[in-house]
């Protein structure tokens, strides 16, 4: 019953978690990461922080979202919370939902510290996979949400298209 209650609470969070959140400027940590990457910095950038062990209930959300937002043509960064080479090799073969092939305007970082750094920069330090929309021109986060809590892509898409 307690577990069912948790699911219900989650359902409600899903229903009410549609507000777009604007964070103040000077997210210099994300700026320092993005700066050296070959991503188009004239448009907003989609950032996923992925914990491969987290997504029991977020996998559908991530799959659908990744596909849905793809057409917008924004740069995207995947930060995966894995450090060891042996893990990286094993997971590269296992994870089918991220295209690891090199591509313009896409970057993949395997680094737990960077994963933690980005999540902590918005006050989330649980091992939860998250999605961010970052405006590199203003060094500002326009949207962030734990992936399994995203229920409405309209807000995400709106943030991706918006210029602050």
């Amino acid at each position, binding site marked *: 019953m307690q577990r*069912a209650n948790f699911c219900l609470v989650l359902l409600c969070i899903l229903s009410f978690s549609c507000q777009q959140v604007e964070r103040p400027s000077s997210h210099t940590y994300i700026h320092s990461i993005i700066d050296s990457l070959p991503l188009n910095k004239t448009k907003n950038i989609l950032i996923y922080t992925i914990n*491969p062990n987290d997504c029991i209930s977020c996998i559908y959300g991530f799959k659908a979202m990744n596909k849905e937002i793809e057409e917008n043509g924004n740069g995207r960064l995947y930060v995966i919370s894995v450090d*060891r080479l*042996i893990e990286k090799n094993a997971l590269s073969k296992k*994870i089918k939902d991220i295209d690891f092939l090199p591509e313009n305007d896409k970057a993949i970082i395997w680094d737990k510290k960077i994963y933690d750094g980005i999540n902590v920069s918005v006050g989330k330090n649980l091992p939860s996979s998250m999605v961010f929309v970052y405006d590199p021109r203003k060094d500002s986060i326009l949207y962030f949400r734990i992936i399994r809590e995203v229920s409405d892509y309209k807000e995400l898409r709106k943030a991706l298209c918006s210029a602050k």
Partner: protein
Amino acid sequence: MVRYLIFLLMLVCFLGGCTRETNHFHLSETTDSVKIDESKIVMTRFPGGLKEINDSIIGLINNNQYISLYNIVTGENVLNFSTASINFDSLVKNTFQKRFLGKRLYNYTPESAGGLSGGNSQVAGFDYYNHSFYIYVNILVDVNYDNDPEKLKKLYEEPSLKALKEKSGDFDLIVGEYLEFIFITDEQFNLTRIVPLFERNKLLTDDYCPYYLKNYAANNTALFVPIQKNQTPVNLHSKVLTGSGIYTLAKIDLNVDEGVEYALESKNIDFDGYTLGQYYSSCLMFKSSFGKLYFSNGKEICEIENEKKLFSKTYLARNEWISDFYSQEGYLLLTTYKTYKKTNPTEMDNAYEIDSTGNISAKIFDLKSQAWKEIKEFKYNSSKSFYITNDKIIYIEKGKENYVIKTIQYAES
């Protein structure tokens, strides 16, 4: 005269032997370490559920998908259990769906079960008893309760759902729910039986929820599992309900669907002041020694059968918690850790009561004199997960590129 002196000497030695105090246990100064073999299973998360299977083999939960057995001397991965060959769709139809036929609709989709790193279920716990493994497996399913008005009514009593209904009107309710199973195997992980862990009416009526995920102890035909009185709404800052007539454990019969007995009244093991958050984050441990089964709630240790307290929380600092223990004759071996409030907690730290962990120690407690005899602090902080056996303390550490099994011997002197 010489003969008299020898006799006197012998007498002194004999008397000395008779009055000798009980032997003391001592922790070894050295720590043995061996690299874990990842040729078969790559560890993509810190392994959990550490348990000793025999003198040379330990078991670990890997990636929430495997129970892996390792030789603690060589680090070799000798055997792995997984649910890869299990057809959960059919299992759900033949268990939960059959039981609630016409009332509830269960929908299992394998893609959601294992997350991004694959798998068709979560392998999240195990116990080893009498040459058998009792493995806890859960799967996430969608449940439609439209034809179960009784349950539906209860669900809609949830305040947040009530509010949603008032705001948005009627809506289709699909509940994401975990279905739980115990897979029983032999020593070679050959599956002998799958037991669906149906809700027990007695627990439902008395408003208890069993927490198999926290831990359990197998005992041939039954499982001892921690239980908790339901609280609505769920709030991690709420106090755990304790007192006379409230129980901390349930004995779940694995042969009878409705078979359940209560054990260990909460008045005999102190949960006073525990918040739900502390309950969920503490190490609830079961341990057998000398034929007796003990339970620790993270602060105190009790023998389950006669509810006798073996260790009281008065010997721990206020912020100190037990992570594991082993009862020797006259002594207790414990590993403990301390929690500290963070200086700059994030909103999640506050919401989930996440504290910093430190001062991880191995300790020896003399039950006769009720005093600490030896304390050894660990200088690392990667996990509070230890396993104490009858002669050693085992733990896992993660290095830059490898995981290692570490052991500290202890012995009588």
